[in-house]
């Protein structure tokens, strides 16, 4: 999709349209790789990861469906990490990386074909059927005597006549106010005052779902580091947390 990020009719009555150069994440990847004169390989993909991320972070989310770009970004970052640290990898991961490379190759094939299509059209060699042309060109041709000012005036009138847009309710997405590290420090304090704690009670201090999750993560972290011992009487009982004195 072409991105129109600026569109207004200033006094000079010039239509100013800024069009982004690429169509989607694959198009962007291909552009970056070709700019560096690289072949489509895992290594070259990992090389352009930083450039890709820079470009994606500058994207206008009003114009692009950013999720598609993020998905590819995640894969690129993973790929780069794999190239930097070639340690153990699973079959599944390997396939996923191949997948991105293959997708890009296939996409390039079609894009090249599209270029050839473009040059066929440049020849301006169309054929017309015996009856009226059936190709619907969907092109706007203003009737004779209609000027840009007329169109602009009509458009303005249309805009004023249009029912007002229903204001959309603004929803605020809460940002994470606490981190796991902060919660860990907090829990340390709690355990210092009392060696035994109830998990239910610790959780009940959370003000939001996210905070509860972070508390839970912090507890898991403490268990992992063997700072606390956990025990439970039976299923769904409260969990007892005990400071490990050793």
């Amino acid at each position, binding site marked *: *999709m*072409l991105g129109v990020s600026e569109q207004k009719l200033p006094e000079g009555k010039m239509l100013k349209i800024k069009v982004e150069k690429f*169509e*989607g*994440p*694959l*198009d962007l990847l291909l552009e970056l790789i070709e700019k560096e004169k690289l072949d489509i390989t895992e290594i070259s993909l990992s090389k352009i990861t930083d450039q890709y991320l820079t470009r994606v972070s500058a994207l206008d989310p009003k114009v692009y*469906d950013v999720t*598609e770009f993020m998905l*590819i970004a995640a894969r690129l970052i993973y790929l780069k990490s794999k190239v930097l640290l070639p340690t153990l990898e699973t079959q599944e991961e390997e396939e996923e990386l*191949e*997948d991105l490379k*293959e*997708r890009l*190759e*296939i*996409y390039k*094939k*079609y*894009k090249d*074909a*599209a*270029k*050839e*299509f*473009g040059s*066929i*059209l*440049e*020849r*301006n*060699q*169309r*054929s*017309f*059927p*015996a*009856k009226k*042309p*059936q*190709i*619907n*060109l*969907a*092109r706007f041709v203003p009737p004779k005597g209609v000027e840009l000012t007329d169109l602009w005036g009509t458009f303005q009138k249309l805009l004023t006549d249009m029912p007002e847009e229903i204001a959309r309710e603004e929803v605020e997405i809460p940002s994470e106010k606490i981190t796991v590290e902060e919660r860990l420090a907090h829990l340390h304090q709690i355990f210092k005052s009392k060696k035994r704690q109830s998990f239910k009670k610790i959780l009940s201090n959370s003000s939001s779902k996210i905070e509860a999750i972070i508390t839970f993560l912090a507890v898991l972290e403490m268990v992992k580091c063997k700072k606390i011992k956990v025990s439970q009487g039976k299923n769904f009982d409260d969990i007892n947390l005990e400071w490990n004195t050793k």
Partner: protein
Amino acid sequence: MKNKDLKKIIESILLVAEKPVSAKELSRSVEAMISEVQDTLANLIKDYEKRGIKIIRKGDYYSMVTDPECAEYIARFLNEELRHDLSGAALETLSIITYKQPVTRVEIEGIRGVASDQILRNLLIRGLIQEVGRKESPGRPILYGTTMEFLQYFGLEGEHQLPVFELPKKTDLFNDIDTIQEQK
């Protein structure tokens, strides 16, 4: 029916036909075997090789059109604009449909990595593509294919004149993408 007459009749039908005609339809109208009609059509196509009129073919369908090389003059006569205004994205989508037809929207988007519904609608309105059926898979998605108008727009006499297209060797993975996309 005599072979000679058959050629004349088919030629005249192609002239008056509003839409592309299939060999099947022709065989019904002229009361002849489909194979006989097809042979006659092949013969006609050859006859027109050096003329200002061409018979173009897409699958089983035939259409009588002007020679693409005369386009400039015809466009001037009809007061038509020849210059094409298809965007890069539209050409890209069209190339996928051309070489992969019949193809679903999800399959197209899987290859492009970007939503393509607007572009598809645009191509449909222009008559360059059409719905050609439904895929027998969950949701029975619409299958798209190119049209006779597509060939006319590109000035081609048949799909054999399209640029040769080959996918990278490992095409099994290509099918995997389709299945992954469809499961979504």
